[in-house]
């Protein structure tokens, strides 16, 4: 460094235009962006108001109290065509939740099985899992939905020629019929004991952990909990005189009577989403397990931990750290893909909203409801999974 260099600050003599100052320029760009954006929003809002006035559509959410007038194929809550638009949307929302939750559970199970299968030492299993992943990952989910809906379920036999499966389950082109549980008097006790068993299991798990940390002895938790959760309600069931009976579907002359029926719309959507998402989950699981260094399992073996326990106590907890974040986004994808229901007429939020949109022309309101609901679903799932992830995360000192 030359000593002669003067140390007068640059600021004291402005060189060139003020536009060369990055800070000024930044503010300038942002002001321009805001001005353009405000102008655009004003222009759009103005056009929209004009267009709505011309089309005689009243804006606002008042239309939600109007009579819907259309029927919904499958509904978890009471609904008739006399119900309001708002209630129809709630029905659609619950249907979305139903297919998303069941799909997520099934996709996770299939995905974990296939993902572990891809790492199997058994050549055949590994190749079969690979084939599964490569087939389902590269086909649009919509096509898989149609495959089930118009390719498979639509060509099943008529209701009167239903294919009988074990356990009084019947399969025909109107869906799958299965025995419906009927809850008689006293069945609430079965439910109460179930809740008690779950709470007891929770405390038992805590006790087991404390005991293991203090003495090193492992408590046979899994079997005890299974015994509690299944055994206690079973005891209550027998003690109250078997209050739960089954309404079995019976093949009539033209149709099945009795039992519960799951329509082909739900079935094809559920199957397609599960199989499609499972392919992605399988790859995530594989990456997660491969991401755990081999030294971890070798160290566990060296300590004398059996292979099964090694997987459960050493490999899986570490793999979960890698798996959970991408798994979350797959769950979100499945939830969003459930909107494909509209293609086959399963009454989910988008399908019901689409019908309302066609009937009332309230495009902005309906689309805004969609956006709010899906965004809050995404946010809730993310929060839940982040909480789970934080519990699983490495505890660093």
């Amino acid at each position, binding site marked *: 460094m030359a000593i002669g260099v003067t140390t007068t600050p640059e600021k004291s003599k402005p060189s060139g235009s003020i536009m060369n100052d990055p800070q000024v320029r930044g503010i300038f760009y942002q002001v321009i962006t805001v001005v353009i954006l405000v102008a655009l929003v004003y222009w759009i809002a103005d056009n*929209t108001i004009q267009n709505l006035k*011309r089309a005689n559509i009243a804006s606002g959410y008042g239309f939600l109290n109007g009579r819907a007038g259309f029927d919904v194929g499958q509904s978890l809550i009471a609904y008739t065509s006399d119900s309001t638009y708002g209630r129809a949307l709630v029905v659609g929302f619950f249907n979305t939740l139903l297919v998303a939750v069941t799909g997520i559970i099934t996709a996770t199970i299939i995905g974990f099985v296939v993902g572990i299968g891809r790492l199997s030492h058994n050549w055949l299993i590994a190749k079969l899992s690979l084939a599964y992943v490569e087939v389902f990952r590269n086909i*649009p989910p919509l*096509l898989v939905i149609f495959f089930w809906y118009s*390719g498979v379920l639509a060509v099943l036999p008529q209701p009167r020629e239903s294919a009988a499966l074990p356990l009084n389950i019947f399969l025909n082109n109107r869906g799958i019929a299965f025995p419906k549980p009927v809850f008689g008097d006293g069945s609430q006790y079965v439910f109460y004991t179930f809740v008690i068993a779950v709470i007891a299991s929770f405390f038992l798990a805590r006790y087991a952990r404390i005991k293991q940390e203090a003495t090193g002895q492992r408590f046979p938790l899994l079997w005890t909990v299974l015994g509690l959760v299944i055994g206690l309600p079973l005891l209550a069931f027998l003690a109250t005189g078997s209050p739960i009976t089954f309404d079995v579907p019976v093949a009539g002359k033209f149709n099945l009577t009795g039992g519960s029926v799951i329509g082909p719309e739900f079935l094809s959507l559920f199957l397609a989403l599960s199989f499609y998402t499972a392919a992605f989950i399988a790859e995530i699981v594989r990456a997660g397990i491969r991401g755990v260094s081999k030294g971890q399992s070798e160290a566990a073996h060296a300590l004398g931990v059996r292979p099964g326990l090694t997987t459960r106590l050493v490999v899986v907890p570490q793999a979960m750290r890698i798996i959970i974040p991408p798994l979350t986004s797959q769950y979100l994808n499945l939830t969003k893909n459930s*909107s494909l229901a509209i*293609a086959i007429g399963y009454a989910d939020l988008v399908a019901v909203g689409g019908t309302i*949109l066609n009937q009332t022309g309230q495009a*902005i309101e309906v689309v805004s409801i969609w956006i709010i609901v*899906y965004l809050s679903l995404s946010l809730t799932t993310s929060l839940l999974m982040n909480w789970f992830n934080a519990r699983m995360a490495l505890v660093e000192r």
Partner: protein
Amino acid sequence: MNSHQGNFVRASMIEAAPAPIQTGGLAYWLRKNLFATPKDTALTIISLLVLAWLVPPAVQWLFIDAAWTGGGRGVCATVAQGGSQPDGWSGACWAFVNAKFDQFLFGRYPIEERWRPALVGILFILFLTPMLIPKVPYKNINAILLLVVLPILALILLPGGWFGLPFVETPLWGGLMVTLVLSFVGIAVSLPLGILLALGRRSTMPVIKMLCTFFIEVVRGIPLITVLFMASVMLPLFLPQGVTFDKFLRALIGVSFFASAYMAEVVRGGLQAIGKGQYEGADSLGLSYWQKMNLIVLPQALKLVIPGIVNTFIGLFKDTSLVSIIGMFDLLGIVRLNFSDANWASAVTPISGLIFAGFIFWLFCFGMSRYSGFMERVLDTSHKR
């Protein structure tokens, strides 16, 4: 201590184990890979049983019993259904795919004008193939041909209306052509737009950052079908009276915006992986923001996220099938449209058509994912073991 010998110390020598029977050949491979343990043996046998139960009927259905040629539903229906096949027959109806093949490619594009999309398709293959092979020189000219000349040609040839070519309106477009145009434009728009959004999200200017984050998070949080609905129902509301957009164009806008939000997150991942030293190095060289990004940061960042980018492309390609829900006839849409053709309606027509469409989609997506793996290896400059 010596007197206190634990019973875990072996007193006698263990018998020498026999030499391995074989360490090569088929029998060894089978024992190692299929029958290593009792559990493996059981799994192998179960899988083989499942395969034996599934594969022969599938082959029978797909190839042996399939109706390959014919001019109507008769060849794909049993006698009881009014066809010529024996009762109890079931097989793929490839005759349907065969008869409708041109429609599956071009939709309802006028037959005498189909040379136009065909020419664009051939040029696309001609320009794309050398682009994909790393060793072929003149990549710059090639890129101009593919990304500038071809779109202009396609814009002239596909809709027509210029140079004496009759005008073909977009509702007549369909089939694989629509799928490919949507994906090509979606890819070509979403990559640059995604990069801009990613840069915006990492910008130091709070307003820009907030806007980009808001756009990305909202679009990523909602399903594509609502975006398409927005493009088809709300866009007309936003425009002054008299200004109308083509439906096809609206779908294009929807798909491109949707993909660019996902692309932005992929690119952001790459940007975050570039060390701070690279940015500071560029700054100390006196490079401007755009020089810094174009010459230093983006080339490294994009290379890192090639798998993610290609995955987004594959997702986009699969997502184009959703336009059939808003009443356009892409490959899936046109296949489904033909189910209702009375001349071909039979029990096996839908599933045959869907298997065909699925195969085409699979071919493209699988090809893309294989190519991305190949590119990763070509561009790899790290010092791997």
